């Protein structure tokens, strides 16, 4: 089926369709992460002894990753600005830079986790670690998926096509960033 449907082109709400869709995706994602995190918070409150397990997380790695993700969100915003100006090539390059930020995040995390696993802090090592790997792993999975989609959007945008998608993937990326802003204090700072 080539060509867009008429349905895709309409906008009874005044908001472009793609943006409306991304916000609804975010709603469902908020409840997914909300479920994990609320379960974790309630359990953490009931298990003060988990603080000992939590003391072994690498706060510096977490802080660096926070900085990396925030910076990548900045390049995503700049990509959007370039897209609104009609500069697809610039938007694509900024999106690729954002993806690089995601890659750095994942690389730092893999070093972090490798070290922790070697020390014996595996996913089975305790209640805290079950949540740590599951929550951060779910987040990392969303970072990875975001990166893949972002590269596809960048490729199309570099040809000055579908520039509205630059904003939409940016919204998703900001959400992934916000989830990390919750994860960082809950997993790394609360000791």
């Amino acid at each position: 089926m080539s060509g867009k449907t008429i349905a895709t082109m309409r906008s009874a709400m005044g908001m472009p369709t793609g943006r409306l869709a991304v916000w609804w995706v975010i709603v469902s994602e908020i409840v997914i992460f909300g479920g994990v995190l609320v379960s974790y918070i309630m359990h953490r409150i009931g298990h003060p002894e988990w603080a000992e397990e939590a003391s072994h997380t690498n706060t510096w790695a977490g802080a660096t990753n926070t900085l990396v993700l925030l910076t990548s969100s900045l390049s995503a915003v700049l990509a959007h600005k370039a897209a609104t100006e009609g500069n697809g090539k610039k938007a694509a390059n900024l999106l690729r830079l954002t993806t690089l930020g995601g890659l750095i995040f994942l690389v730092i995390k893999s070093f972090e986790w490798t070290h922790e696993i070697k020390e014996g802090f595996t996913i089975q090592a305790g209640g805290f670690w079950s949540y740590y790997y599951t929550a951060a792993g779910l987040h990392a999975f969303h970072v990875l998926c975001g990166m893949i989609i972002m590269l596809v959007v960048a490729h199309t945008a570099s040809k000055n096509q579908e520039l509205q998608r630059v904003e939409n993937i940016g919204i998703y990326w900001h959400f992934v960033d916000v989830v990390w802003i919750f994860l960082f204090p809950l997993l790394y700072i609360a000791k």
Partner: protein
Amino acid sequence: MAYAHPHDAHAPAHAGHHEQSFFQKYLWSTDHKIIAFQYLFTGMALAMVGGFMAYVFRMQLAFPGTSVPGWGVVSPGQYNALITNHGSIMIFWVAMPVLIAGFGNFLIPLMIGADDMVFPRINRLSYQLFLLSALVLVASLFVQNGGFGGAWTAYPPLSANKNYNMTPYGATMWVLAVALEFVAFLLGGINFIVTTMNSRAKGMKAFDVPIVIWCIVIASILFMASVGPLIAGAVMLLFDQLLGTSFFNPNRGGDPILWQHLFWFFGHPEVYVVMLPAFGIVAEVMTVMARKKLFAYKTVIYTIVATGVLSFFVWAHHQFVAGIDPRMANVFTVTTVLISIPVGEMCFVYIATLYGGSIRLTTPMLWALAFLGEFLIGGVTGIYLGASGLDVFFHDTYFVVAHFHYTFFPIAIIAVFSGLTFWFPKMFGRMMNETWGKVHFWGTIIPFNFIFIPLFFLGLNGEHRRIFDYHSFPQLDTPFMHTLRVMATVSLIVMLLFQIPFIINFIVSAIRGPKADKNPWRANTLEWTTDSPPPHGNWPQAEMPEVHRRHYEYAVPGRAEDFWPQNERA
């Protein structure tokens, strides 16, 4: 941000359809109508699987230890797998795909005057994921040690620990199937919500949208807002099963009750997710067949939103005897009884709509009327269960089973038959046979009551759920109880046999029933303004409908016709 094109005339020309292969047209299609049929037929096929499972386990209950024709002797493990998968299949692989994905996909673009969904390729992907989930579920029944037998509620530690459930592969595949199904419906839901919000025909304001579409969209929103915690829970259960985490393991710092909360936080809104489309279908059928507008349409919309919101605050009524604080139980009793108000109001709305109407007792209308009566029984018996004091006795008895079948059966079967017989002419371009439709109707409704009324009495007499053989319980092994069990089983067999006329009627009518014109029921909504069946794109590009009124203008004084289509100019 001028990315949106305000006028349809600017839309790129739809590629004129060059010949498509069978594969492209039927298996790889992005056309919402084809995808709707894919969901419908898959759901109907799985309904037969779920129905067969019910037949087998009811035969075991009525005639314990005997060889069931078509199955053999039922072992305890098989019994558990049968009841687990019957429940899971009927809710996740029949009710959801038929009511939401099937009717939603077919009706939404047609009733809002669009040519397709906003994201046709994501629509196709959602069905493919759904099909994959169904295949994983069916495959789980054939792996070593058989299908998962931990009940559709899958409480840990039973569901998490393979030494307890003894179905390691089945248990994991069940979780995977459910998770995949959730992802499919999240994708589909986004399509439905965005399409309805953004792609309405020119002139169709929010309160001109037909009530069934409102119901399906609000159900999709409800689903999206409630499934997240269970997706989290499913990941946690999977990790407990496979990776040795301890989310739900009390010996290692976990909490089995956490699963219950995550499950039921979704599980309760879920029943309203399937209930709302059923209510919407019945409302549409009743207005057309009574030639009268829906009573208090705007209030109904506020009511269903209120029902949706309230549904998030009742979940722990499933956990009254799980060890929760009795003061919490009081709170949930109040909210549970409260939610019967908006739902009861919907039933009053139906009665008020019918009152003074010019009623045609066609097959779709018979099903719609039956929905009202049967669902009322289900709803009223829910009040008994919602009172925590009474629930101490009723929990885990057949009273609960009877209650939820008196709600689920109207939702997943009665309303579906109403919708199928009503929209069949539009879907397939031919009329179904009315006589056989009525035979099917009575042959379903009468036995249905004889299956589940006995179950209320069994529950009142203390018969617990999920027991393979009641001979082990002397106080339940009385002739009276046994007669009830046999009555329920025999009625089920009769009811299943009466589905054969429906299947034959469906297939024969689709192939060579009398041809249907555009609007055989003389209804107002937009789907009846195009051909039966609608072409690809639903209307010619230059003739996309415009809307000039709500869809309830039946029997308007002074007009020659007793209906007034939405797209007709004043």
